């Protein structure tokens, strides 16, 4: 009796487990209310290649559904582009990245399919879908969850564009500014003196170097955590040249702790040249321009420690700074050094203004390098930039006046004019 009962229980368990096995796809024809949902793919326009844009249109009823996008290439390889996107997001881009440089290759045909679901898609289902070479458009059921498979897009091929046509206004303004620059360059070369106003803080360079020399202390020049391609770092290197020349003339020592090896190498060249120009190449020591680390706070800790031990009389903070700016400026302040800072990072400028003796704000830093060298080419770039600023101001004033007529007096002509102006600025 007991044996029979046990067998019966075993049979029941087996039957239940067999009948409840619904871990497979079941095609249900079109039972998901997806009328009007379809996806399309196209090559991303005006890009450098290796990128495809997938768009979808949908009725409002599907606003809160999720979409998973699958990709098949011409060789039959399947992969997942994105999972569980909110349908309301309308678009996803399939692009190569640093992590996946060969994700999308130019010249290869790709086909995209969308999986529409009301819940976040099951990982097992995703694996099953990836294995399928082709999925018929329609509604499916998996583990009691219903989902809809869109029809596959036409073949999409990614390609690189020669020109970014959306940047035409940028090109036009670049050509105009280039002509203005050439005009001023001609003026400067023909002997006309181009004026540049005095920049507060630059006169303090000599005072700072002199003070350090008198105190028998070195000078520390910090270029921040930018790379040699960053404009503030380049401006910082130009100012470094001037400071190094003064340092060589005063026969004192300059320390340049660097964040990036290429910036360090460039700084070595700049300091060496400045010492040679000042007639004191013998004083140049390349070990005074040293590499610390490429970790932001490791660099801040290293420079802080160096400041406390070397106790420089003057600290120059000229370059690109981020969250470490206040840590460095505060340590420099605590050791009583005269500090001259400059950066274009608006978020860090308040800290420099608070903790340093002199601060070059944003473009003042670029102008400072021109002020120090006063070369015709650099002076003409400043004059051209100023003219560009006048043009920008006129544009803003014109926009403001037009908007008064457009929105204040509700005049259609001005509304159109304002729209054209605003559209032209959206590059």
């Amino acid at each position: 009796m007991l044996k029979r009962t046990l067998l019966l229980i075993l049979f029941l368990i087996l039957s239940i487990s067999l009948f409840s096995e619904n871990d497979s796809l079941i095609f249900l024809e079109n039972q998901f209310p997806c009328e009007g949902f379809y996806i399309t793919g196209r090559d991303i326009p005006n890009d450098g290649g290796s990128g495809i844009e997938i768009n979808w249109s949908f009725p409002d009823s599907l606003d809160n559904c999720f979409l998973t996008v699958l990709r098949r290439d011409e060789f039959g390889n399947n992969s997942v582009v994105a999972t569980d996107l909110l349908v309301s997001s309308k678009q996803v881009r399939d692009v190569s990245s640093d992590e996946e440089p060969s994700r999308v290759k130019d010249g290869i045909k790709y086909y995209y399919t969308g999986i529409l679901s009301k819940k976040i898609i099951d990982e097992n289902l995703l694996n099953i879908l990836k294995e399928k070479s082709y999925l018929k458009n329609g509604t499916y059921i998996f583990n009691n969850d219903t989902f809809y498979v869109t029809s596959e897009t036409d073949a999409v091929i990614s390609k690189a564009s020669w020109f970014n046509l959306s940047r035409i206004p940028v090109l036009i303004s670049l050509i105009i500014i280039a002509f203005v620059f050439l005009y001023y360059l001609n003026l400067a070369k023909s002997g006309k003196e181009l004026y540049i106003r005095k920049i507060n803080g630059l006169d303090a360079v000599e005072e700072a170097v002199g003070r350090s020399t008198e105190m028998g202390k070195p000078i520390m020049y910090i270029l921040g955590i930018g790379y040699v391609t960053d404009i503030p770092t380049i401006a910082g290197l130009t100012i470094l040249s001037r400071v190094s020349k003064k340092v060589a003339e005063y026969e004192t020592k300059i320390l340049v702790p660097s964040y990036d090896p290429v910036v360090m190498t460039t700084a070595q060249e700049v300091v060496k040249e400045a010492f040679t120009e000042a007639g004191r190449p013998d004083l140049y020591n390349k070990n005074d321009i040293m590499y610390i680390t490429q970790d932001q706070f490791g660099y801040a800790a290293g420079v802080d420690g160096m400041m406390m031990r070397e106790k420089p009389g003057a600290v120059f903070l000229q370059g690109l700074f981020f969250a470490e700016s206040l840590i460095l400026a505060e340590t420099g302040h605590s050791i009583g050094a005269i500090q001259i800072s400059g950066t274009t990072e608006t978020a860090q400028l308040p800290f420099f203004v608070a903790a340093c003796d002199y601060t070059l704000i944003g473009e003042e830093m670029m102008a400072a390098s021109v002020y120090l060298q006063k070369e015709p080419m650099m002076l003409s770039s400043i004059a051209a930039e100023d003219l560009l600023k006048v043009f920008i101001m006129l544009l803003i004033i014109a926009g403001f006046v037009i908007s008064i007529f457009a929105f204040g007096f509700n005049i259609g002509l001005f509304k159109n004019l304002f729209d054209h102006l605003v559209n032209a600025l959206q590059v």
Partner: protein
Amino acid sequence: MAISTNFWIWIAALLTLAIYSFLYKDNPFYKFAEYLLVGISIGYGISIYWHNTIITKVYNPLVYDKNFLVLIPLLLGLLMFSRFFKNVSYLSRIPIAFVVGAGTGLSVPSSFEFLFKQIYATMPLKLDIGSLIIVVGVISTLVYFFFSLEHKGFVGKVSKVGITFIMVAFGAAFGYTIMARVSLFIGRIQFLLSDWLGIIK
């Protein structure tokens, strides 16, 4: 709650205290933490460069994709090592010049694009007091950054309005960032008192 028995929490807590000891003065504990951080970050940086640059961008394209164009940047990179040999050290200027030139050139269109975005953001899309403040602020700030004119007379007065706007913006940014830094400090103190000492929950 009891004091932590996790070895790594102890290490993290002691290193946190070592770094904070700098607020008193420079000392051997701070020096130890500083050298450890610098050393570890260099080692970590090298491993990142090895995997993300040498392997991903040089070895894989060269060996698997047979992309021999990779040899050009590789050669430029190798030229940086010429600095170790005095008689050919000048060759290191070639990659530096390439990087500076390409970087500056590439930044020109993006800077212009940024400029367009800023002008667009200044355009008064509706007529209200906020739009007027933005227009006046932007124009006077632009006047402050005029370098071809001396800041005297009318230009001087407008530039003073400009620097006032700049300082107001700096004040707001200062307060905002300080709040973020204080919240970081609170996070650290919470770690010490909760995860390490178990004084608070």
